[in-house]
């Protein structure tokens, strides 16, 4: 029976890249060659990663959405029962995979537009596939800007890639809450970077944001202040997810199932819901 949406497929960890403290990126490949060949995902989508006797965790794709899905990347922070166990995996170990699930970043709407990516902490990971996609077809977009913040310089993700991204046409603006002795960049919260952006054409801009809900809230407010329509702001919402296809009920946010209707939402579709405490 292949129509069981709960059935995981076995994948093998091909490599582990330590990123920052308690965060690593796993390159995975489905063991079944035919399934590996067929595997595709869109930037913004996620997989359910499973370790037997431990459980499942919803983890966003963080690698390039290549046409050959044979290999894919997940950047994972070790914060719970499942991810703490994933932390113990090494190259050659196996893991269960279900997916991909969920909605995607609006790559088509970005064509011909300025694209501003606003993100904090680990929120850059679900946006990295979008960055790869934008830079790969760089001529299709106007300005592509990354506004990225972390608590401290040591917690900025993917710093080793930033230079090559800049060379490929990405404007990068970084900020930290607490600077260290070597930091000569901005200090302060991410939405402030948005306030300081110059030369943006707000009516021809798409804003993609992912990070703590409070950060996305202020990023969206800043974008709206700049004149960006609510319908051109996109955010990725996180909730408890178990089935990943809108059946178990855990991830509900008012009328939406975050796993199935999201995780990527248009701001105007969810901003009223996100305002309600404990919804």
């Amino acid at each position, binding site marked *: 029976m292949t129509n069981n949406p709960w059935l995981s497929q076995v994948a093998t960890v091909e490599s582990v890249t330590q990123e920052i403290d308690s965060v690593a990126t796993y390159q995975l490949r489905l063991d079944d060659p035919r399934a590996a060949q067929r595997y595709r995902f869109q930037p913004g989508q996620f997989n359910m990663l499973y370790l037997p006797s431990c459980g499942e965790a919803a983890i966003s794709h963080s690698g390039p959405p290549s046409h050959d899905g044979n290999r894919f990347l997940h950047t994972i922070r070790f914060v719970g029962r499942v991810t703490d166990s994933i932390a113990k995996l090494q190259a050659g170990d196996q893991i269960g995979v279900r997916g991909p699930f969920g909605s995607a970043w609006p790559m088509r709407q970005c064509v011909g537009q300025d694209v501003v990516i606003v993100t904090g902490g680990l929120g850059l990971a679900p946006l990295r596939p979008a960055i790869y996609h934008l830079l790969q077809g760089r001529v299709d977009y106007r300005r592509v800007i990354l506004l990225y913040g972390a608590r401290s310089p040591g917690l900025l993700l993917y710093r080793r890639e930033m230079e090559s991204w800049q060379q490929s046409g990405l404007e990068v603006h970084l900020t930290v809450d607490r600077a260290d002795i070597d930091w000569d960049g901005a200090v302060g919260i991410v939405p402030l970077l948005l306030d300081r952006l110059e030369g943006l054409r707000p009516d021809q801009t798409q804003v993609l944001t992912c990070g703590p809900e409070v950060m996305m809230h202020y990023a969206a407010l800043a974008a709206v202040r700049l004149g960006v329509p609510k319908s051109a702001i996109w955010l990725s919402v996180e909730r408890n997810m178990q089935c990943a*296809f809108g059946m178990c009920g855990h991830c509900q946010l008012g009328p939406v199932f975050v796993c199935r209707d999201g995780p990527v939402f248009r701001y105007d579709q969810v901003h009223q819901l996100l305002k309600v405490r404990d919804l």
Partner: protein
Amino acid sequence: MPAKDPTRCHVNATELPVIDHSPTPAQWFLPRQSLQTLLDQLQRLGYEVVGPRIDQAAIVYDQIESVDELPAGWTDLQSPGQYRLQPRADDALFGYVVGPHSWKKYLFPPLVNLMRSTKTTDGWQMQDEPQEPRRYALLGVRACELAAIAIQDRVFLSERYTDPLYQQRRHALLIIAVNCTQAASTCFCTSMQSGPRCTSGFDLALTELPTGFVVEIGSPGGQAVADDLPLRPATEQERESSSLARKTAFDQITRQLDTTNIRDKLMTRLEHPRWADVASRCLSCANCTLVCPTCFCHSVDDVTDLTSDEVIRQRHWDSCFNMDFSYANGGAVRDNVRSRYRQWLTHKLASWIDQFGSSGCVGCGRCITWCPVGIDLTEEVAAICSEPST
């Protein structure tokens, strides 16, 4: 479909209705002593028959083989937080309404194995957990319960994802409905347009009379079962009696829930003070979600042997009233009773409409009866909606 050409006759000779000059009654009569024949026949056809029987002083749904196991001569008295069985003056077999069980436990079982991981020398093998096909015949399904099954169909058999176990059991299902001939004080199916009359979604529908059952046939499957029953056309008097019996149920329903614009009314009152008020009474015990015939929320856990080499992934009923239900990022999104009660009520009556195109409530009243502190959702909705939006 191609547009009809008025110049051509589209009626195929084989499709012409057969004109039968003998009266063809849509209603039949099954003598009471022949109900066992129906049970025997269902068993012969390979069905597991489940129906009402008494267990622990309540009428529950369980496997039955004999008519003698039905709660003959018993009825239920229900009110908020109260359920009592008491003897009837007659020996009616279906003279009560709905109890703590619903049929969802057969289509969406409380505990199911979803997949199995086995550690071998070649690594993990992850496989479907084979499900034994089940053919259930449900006896005594009420109108509100037919509506509940239709609602769960939309949850588990959506266009994008289907639950294989639900699908197998649902497609093999035979439904013998029973029209209510009385109502409890907690019933409000008339408000939810789900009863008390069984109008569709059944294979056979019975209305109980002292001498037997007026039978309606609702599907080819029901017809096939009926063909082998000792049925005779119902007399005019039997039809009238059955109609009167059904009207009694209708007349006894007093509880109401105003569904006019209910989705918007509730979703614009998410900060209404009544939520805190009901939270001060609600125990967050999850009884309402367990007895609800449409609540579908569930969780998945791993069960493993001592060596952890054989791991089963198990699905079990869960409830939005449990604290862990919304756990994400190191804490529960809904960490207080107010937000959990609000989630349950607004999901059931409002956001369900966005998600599945209908209300999630069928007006069966179980959540009112089985609430240990007698919270009545119709009362809460009235209090929340009577005031201007907040």
